[in-house]
């Protein structure tokens, strides 16, 4: 009996080792069921499309945050990068006449801006060894400054070609689902790359990674560059969803991205986690927000109930995750 219990807990442990996002998946399933119970339409195609459309940006930003957290770093500037890229592409598309071609060009430039921001963060934190929390907070102020320079006030509309595509359908299937599928393939392929393995190795024990010959500094810089690139992708979704430019649009998203990473079972100390978990974490935040609405919480209480639910989910996730690894 005791032996059986041990093997089953060993099995659970092995599962958790391979799939650290299992608790998140469970919470997600429960939340989906509750959403469906209180508002059946929320689990219909239309409901799910709306959820994905709204939270795709946070999913991508949580993925972005995950790459630096892998290596035990953190990036508090991801929200500012979203704002900056949002402003850059909206202004650029306006300047280029709002055609489909301008949208493609803007996406290219936006990715370059995200990459550059990530590179700046990586150089400061890894190469110059500034403390990640304060250094990326400082760069977030700097990036927001550039965003304000490019677009001083919110409200410049994005060209219709851009947001109609994002919110529209293609062969009767919502466009965001194509994005989600492409994203899933990219993440699946990414998870097998040498860079991700090395980021996790650095996060697990930087000293040992260094001693076994890994270029720790270069790896951490690349982690920040990945974060910058995925933040730019998140900015495209924000732009598609809000259909306008806003120099402060991403500010509130930074801490949610950290929360989503933790909800997904990734350890902030580094060396352990998955990007899939972070995607689930972002969806958990989205589903908590909608559930609080669907159960009929009075509007002034909604933020408090959301806050409490997220806090409890965070705590439960950390405790269950550790139990499984201990």
């Amino acid at each position, binding site marked *: 009996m005791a032996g059986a219990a041990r093997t089953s807990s060993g099995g659970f442990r092995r599962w958790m080792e391979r799939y650290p996002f299992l608790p998140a998946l469970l919470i997600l399933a429960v939340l989906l069921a509750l959403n469906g119970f209180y508002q059946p339409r929320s689990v219909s195609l239309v409901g799910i499309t709306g959820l994905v459309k709204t939270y795709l940006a946070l999913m991508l930003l949580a993925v972005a945050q995950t790459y630096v957290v892998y290596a035990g770093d953190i990036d*508090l500037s991801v929200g500012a990068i979203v704002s900056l890229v949002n402003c850059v592409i909206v202004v650029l598309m306006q300047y280029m006449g709002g055609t489909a071609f301008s949208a493609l060009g803007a996406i290219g430039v936006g990715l370059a801006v995200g990459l550059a921001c990530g590179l700046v963060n990586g150089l*400061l934190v890894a190469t*110059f*060894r*500034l*403390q990640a*929390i*304060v*250094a990326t*907070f*400082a*760069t*977030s*102020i*700097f*990036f*927001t*400054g*550039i*965003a*304000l*320079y490019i677009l*001083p006030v919110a409200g410049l509309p994005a060209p219709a070609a851009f947001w109609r595509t994002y919110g529209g359908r293609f062969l009767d299937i919502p466009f965001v689902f194509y994005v989600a599928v492409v994203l899933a393939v990219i993440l699946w392929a990414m998870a097998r790359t040498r860079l991700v393995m090395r980021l996790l190795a650095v996060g697990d024990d*930087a*000293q040992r990674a*260094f*001693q076994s010959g890994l270029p*720790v*500094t270069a790896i951490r810089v690349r982690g920040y560059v990945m974060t910058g690139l995925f933040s730019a992708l998140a900015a495209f979704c924000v732009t598609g969803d809000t259909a306008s430019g806003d120099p402060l649009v991403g500010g509130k998203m930074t*801490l949610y991205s*950290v*929360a989503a990473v*933790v909800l997904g079972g990734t350890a*902030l*100390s580094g060396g352990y986690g998955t990007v899939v978990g972070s995607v689930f974490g972002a969806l958990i935040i989205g589903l908590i927000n909608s559930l609080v609405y669907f159960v009929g919480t009075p509007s*002034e*209480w*909604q*933020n*408090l*109930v*959301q*806050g*409490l639910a*997220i*806090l409890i989910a*965070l*705590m439960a996730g*950390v*405790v269950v995750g*550790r139990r499984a690894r201990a």
Partner: protein
Amino acid sequence: MNVGALVRQPLVVALALIVVLLAFGEWLSPGFAAPQQILRLLIVAALLGIVAAGQNLVILGGREGIDLSVGGVVSLSAIVAGNLMSGADSGIPLAILGCVATGALFGLFNGLGVTLLRIPPLVMTLGMLGVLQGLLVVIRQGIPSGRAAPALSQFVSQPFLLGLPGIIWLWIAIGVVMALLLTRTVFGHRVYAIGSNEHAAYMAGVPVRLIRIAIFVLSGVFAAIAGICLLGYSGSSFANVGEQYMLPSIIAVVFGGTPLSGGKGGYTGTMAGAVLLTILQSILTTVHIDESGRQMVFGATLILLMFFYGRGKAMRA
């Protein structure tokens, strides 16, 4: 102490930078460094510095300790104080009691989560920040924002003793108490002990959990005190008034020479760090540039200043 060692002292660096920035501000706009202006700067710095006192303890206690909920506690405390005193001096004692209890309560929640459930401080206080922000929305729907009592406003802005307002004296007192607490008491030594090596401290018989809970409770209390003073400074409280202190309180600690890894540093440096940060912000509001330029210069200057402070060690085989 030779010159080389002296320029590596964070306190010396911070004080030198303060003098340089004051001179620069005076050059940019004559009158910037006038006594009256400096006094005004110190009042603003005191608000940040009091929040940073709690932040300082949490960071010293190590285990990647930071308290992201301080901003929420400041906002909550300001609104609780405003309602408990509602413009009457007689309500001040009750307001102080109520605010300190509120701050201590949320600090206690943080401390319990971090110790009993072993949630990383960043995660715990991030979650608590969300709860506090939600609570603020609820409170603001139900009750007015409240007003500061005249005596409280006087305490913050009018000369009290030797030409300095009460809040400056309060800050000095907090500085002295913190210095004594950290260097002369068992509690202080234990904070450093758990910050530099929690396991060793535990083995040596330090009640690690109790100390860590106390640290978070104190952080909540300091944030609550800052909230009361902030109410006195601005007259009435408004939504999320404390948010501006969340990350700057961490930067003040870092500029004061306490690394985020914990276990070393002190509050005297943090006070200088708070003054430094306040002067920097004040210079940027003095010069006539756009908000965008202001933010870019502020961010770049923060990065530049960080190069003066304990950078991480290079990897060695």
